[in-house]
């Protein structure tokens, strides 16, 4: 039997500990250690006039209070601009603790350390901060009007003007047989992992070393940031991401103020310190995403083929730009999706507002780009009286056009060249899966039940697996255990399982022998992080390459022992053997022992490798030149550019014309992420993404008032979907392998969320005949839209005199 686990729905090995309560999340670490709590700004924009901590000093159990005045050296400087870009002309970042100004509600001003969190909060609420309030900017429209400014030296509130074009758009639009121009909006949501952020730090004063646990998506970079900011040598800092209770993007940002302040306090106090973010803190001091105003002009011909597209996006980046302009670049470049757009121009103006920062949330700008493009397709179809699926089909890139160059520059600085795909295949599968052509019958059936029914679809292409690199280390121990390590982190994606599947398949060992470690800088110091659906592509290929290196060495050593030709050898079920010659074999664990020539026999197995154990060849050194002791290999995977996964979603909605409740009654997904390592896990990723897509389309929004107060900063008021809000999802797969990497895989993490808003907006528009140009949409907003005499109606609704049941 050949060990072949790649592609199988192997059950997850992380589950064994997680289902019995033995997971080790951030707040499970360091029982009884000192706790940090923060005094955060209650104002969206204000000057700090003073901090009076006098009343807090009497609190029994108080250990320390820190303000900006206590920060020295690099800690007193602004936080880093993590991803600089030439078009980010006015980057701004906050300080670990506010330096005289606060620019959003929730910005940290004072850190309190005490014997436990209760006491830390007792002290924090006794600290008086005096503020002078300043005018507040909330929302993209207020930002672009710039009657008030966020940063006084940026009078137009514009942080960046990102611009890409693939031809001369104005003459192309002038020459187009038809054009349409429209403006649409999309609102803010957020990652909202069930576990907030958290940091635990332990300083070993004797060893002068720091161990930090952080609920992060990028432990190696958090390590580097801590070393830089606290002026420690990198080798004195280790950072470990323990079990992480969800990330979805928010934990890729770093260093968060707390990731620096908690270690700083641990060093100053010589005691372990921990901070675990509470839910309100997460709402007001982590990150949000999605808000954009999109101004779109499209040129198209009589058949609905797009001839030119001009898009101007106003992107709300919140108060600061620590993550650069990654989200708007992704919107700008992924917007064109699976379509041929002969001439395309996009300008994104990224603007400051007095709100929480905007950094990637699963999809990271793609849902907005998909919303822009797919709603454009719907408008073109409506204007020409064509079927929406047909208009899409006419514009799709065809399979013979790969590699397809969009002549754009992606978020990794590399060209947007699609590696492979079959977009007509996706569309055909979707039409069949959702029953697109039976929509009229579904509509009639719903009408008979007094409901309005609509169908909508959206397609996307997702750049996944961007570089620069990830690495993998594979080591076979004398016990036969295979240790695998990679530097990127895990937040529930099942990396321990899929990387074990890959290594077991490549090396030819039982999966039970493989143990995988991620996100621990003690084990692997070089890594980038977990974002952009990159873990399987990057670390998957890196551990595969590392396993191949081990395999090659094992076969070489075994061939010498067995006096066989390495080319005739294989590894199967942990046995290195001559193909077709039973008995001519040696266990991999023995090869591991032999790979390390020994002087000392510390156990029975080791005896085999000692200097008097065998005949040996005394004409050669025990370790050959260029060789190394041990059966291990380290390798890296660094791609030329991203892979491009793709998919198509369709939603069927039913709307109650009395309550205007919107119910997604059917949701279909066709998904292509290249070769699939574990279909069970990929489907799980799709399910979770769709739930977030539905949430973003119908329920979730960050409700800021004009003063910059987040009105719904709790799970009571921010409506994250429960099971009752998530439709059943039917999934069909297509596998178009990537030619760019050894395993032929593309990423799958973000896919499920991308087309949700676009597909559901399309379905609601189909059901109601009213143009849907702002998402998410609530029943109340839909009710208001239906009663608004001036609301735009679709051409389709005017032609078919669609019964929309507007209440009297």
């Amino acid at each position: 039997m050949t060990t072949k686990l790649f592609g199988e729905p192997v059950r997850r090995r992380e589950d064994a500990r997680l289902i019995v309560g033995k997971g080790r999340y951030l707040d499970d670490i360091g029982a009884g250690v000192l706790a940090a709590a923060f005094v955060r700004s209650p104002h969206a924009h204000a000057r700090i006039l003073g901090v009076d901590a006098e009343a807090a000093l009497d609190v029994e159990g108080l250990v320390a209070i820190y303000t900006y005045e206590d920060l020295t050296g690099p800690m007193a400087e602004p936080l880093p601009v993590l991803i600089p870009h030439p078009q980010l002309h006015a980057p701004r970042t906050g300080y670990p603790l506010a330096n005289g100004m606060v620019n959003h509600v929730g910005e940290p001003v004072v850190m309190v350390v005490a014997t436990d969190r209760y006491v830390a909060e007792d002290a924090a609420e006794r600290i008086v901060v005096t503020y002078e309030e300043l005018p507040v900017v909330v929302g993209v429209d207020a930002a672009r009007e710039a009657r008030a400014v966020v940063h006084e030296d940026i009078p137009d509130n514009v942080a960046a003007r990102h611009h890409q074009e693939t031809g001369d758009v104005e003459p192309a639009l002038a020459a187009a047989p038809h054009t349409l121009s429209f403006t649409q909006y999309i609102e803010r949501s957020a990652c909202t992992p069930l576990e907030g952020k958290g940091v635990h730090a332990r300083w070993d004063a004797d060893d002068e070393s720091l161990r930090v646990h952080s609920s992060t998506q990028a432990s190696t970079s958090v390590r580097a940031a801590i070393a830089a900011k606290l002026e420690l040598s990198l080798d004195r800092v280790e950072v470990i991401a323990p079990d992480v209770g969800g990330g979805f993007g928010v934990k890729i940002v770093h260093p968060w103020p707390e990731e620096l302040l908690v270690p700083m306090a641990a060093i100053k106090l010589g005691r372990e310190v921990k901070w675990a973010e509470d839910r309100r803190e997460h709402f007001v001091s982590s990150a949000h995403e999605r808000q954009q105003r999109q101004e779109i002009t499209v040129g198209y011909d009589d058949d609905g083929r797009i001839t030119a597209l001009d898009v101007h996006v106003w992107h709300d980046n919140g108060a600061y730009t620590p993550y650069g302009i990654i989200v708007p670049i992704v919107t700008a470049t992924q917007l064109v999706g699976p379509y041929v757009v002969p001439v395309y121009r996009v300008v994104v103006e990224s603007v400051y507002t007095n709100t929480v920062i905007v950094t990637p949330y699963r999809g990271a700008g793609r849902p907005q780009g998909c919303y822009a493009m797919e709603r454009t397709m719907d408008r073109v179809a409506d204007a020409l009286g064509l079927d929406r699926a047909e208009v899409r089909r006419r514009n799709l890139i065809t399979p013979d056009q790969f590699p397809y160059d969009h002549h754009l520059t992606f978020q990794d600085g590399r060209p947007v060249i699609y590696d492979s795909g079959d977009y007509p295949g996706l569309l055909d599968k979707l039409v069949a899966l959702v029953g697109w052509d039976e929509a009229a019958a579904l509509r009639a059936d719903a009408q008979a039940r007094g409901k309005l029914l609509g169908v909508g679809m959206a397609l996307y292409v997702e750049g996944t697996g961007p570089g620069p690199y990830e690495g993998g280390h594979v080591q076979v121990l004398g016990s036969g255990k295979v240790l695998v390590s990679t530097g990127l982190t895990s937040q529930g994606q099942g990396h321990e399982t899929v990387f074990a599947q890959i290594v077991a398949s490549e090396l030819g060992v039982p999966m039970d022998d493989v143990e995988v470690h991620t996100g621990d800088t003690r084990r692997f110091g070089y890594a980038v992080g977990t974002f952009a659906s990159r873990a399987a592509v990057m670390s998957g290929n890196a551990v595969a390459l590392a396993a191949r290196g081990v395999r090659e060495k094992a076969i070489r050593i075994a061939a010498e022992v067995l006096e066989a030709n390495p080319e005739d050898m294989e590894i199967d079920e942990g046995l290195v053997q001559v193909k077709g010659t039973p008995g001519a074999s040696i266990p991999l664990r023995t090869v591991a022992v032999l790979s390390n020539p020994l002087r000392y026999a510390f156990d029975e197995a080791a005896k085999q490798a000692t200097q008097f154990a065998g005949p040996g060849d005394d004409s050669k050194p025990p370790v050959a030149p260029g060789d190394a002791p041990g059966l291990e290999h380290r390798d890296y995977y660094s791609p030329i550019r991203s892979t491009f996964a793709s998919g198509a979603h369709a939603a069927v909605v039913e709307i109650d014309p009395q309550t205007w409740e919107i119910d997604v009654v059917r949701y279909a997904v066709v998904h292509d992420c290249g070769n699939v390592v574990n279909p069970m896990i990929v489907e799980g990723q799709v399910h979770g993404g769709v739930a977030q897509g539905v949430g973003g389309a119908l329920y979730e929004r960050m409700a800021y008032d004009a003063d910059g107060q987040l009105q719904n900063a709790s799970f009571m008021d921010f409506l994250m979907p429960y099971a009752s809000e998530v439709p059943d999802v039917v999934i069909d797969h297509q596998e178009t392998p990537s030619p760019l990497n050894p395993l032929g895989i593309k990423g799958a993490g973000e896919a499920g969320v991308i087309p949700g808003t676009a597909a559901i907006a399309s379905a609601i528009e189909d059901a109601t005949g009213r143009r849907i140009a702002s998402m998410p949409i609530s029943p109340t907003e839909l009710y208001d839209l239906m009663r608004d005499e001036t609301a735009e109606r679709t051409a389709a609704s005017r032609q078919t005199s669609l019964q929309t049941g507007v209440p009297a």
Partner: protein
Amino acid sequence: MTTPVDRPQTDTERTVTVTVNGVPREATVPVRRVLSDLLRDDLGLTGTHVGCAHGVCGSCTVLVDGDPVRSCLVLAVQVEGAEVTTVEGLAREDHRGGQVLHPVQEAFRECHALQCGFCTPGFLVTIAAGLEARDRSAEITEEEVDELVGGNLCRCTGYANIKKAVRHAATTMRDAR
């Protein structure tokens, strides 16, 4: 300007005696301490997770005298004399000292009903209690499934596989009668 809070520190302590997962436990805690902190910090049972601390997400759900409660909303002193079951207490020991998982735990693994695992303990104890309380011989209905999973938040799975796990566990429990 913020207003200073003038509230006396609540440092009154009480000793709480409670049976947790079948084991009598005792802890002396400030009266304001919530049950989730008692379990996690005083008794070292960190399987119970706190996702929102305001009773909405359900991650911290434990059983008090058999009923699911949000341990972030219950004071530790309120469980004096009660029987508390946490996720650590769902599995039972077999006669050889090994662990036999509850059918719901088995089902979660089999059906890929968890990803990051943070909300999982709350789902597990809620569903386990619900399945224990119902007539096992009856085929589980979709309404029952919705009821059992409907009160907890999960951000990873989209719930489809959690519902599948409930059906799976109900079938196992029916067949094991």
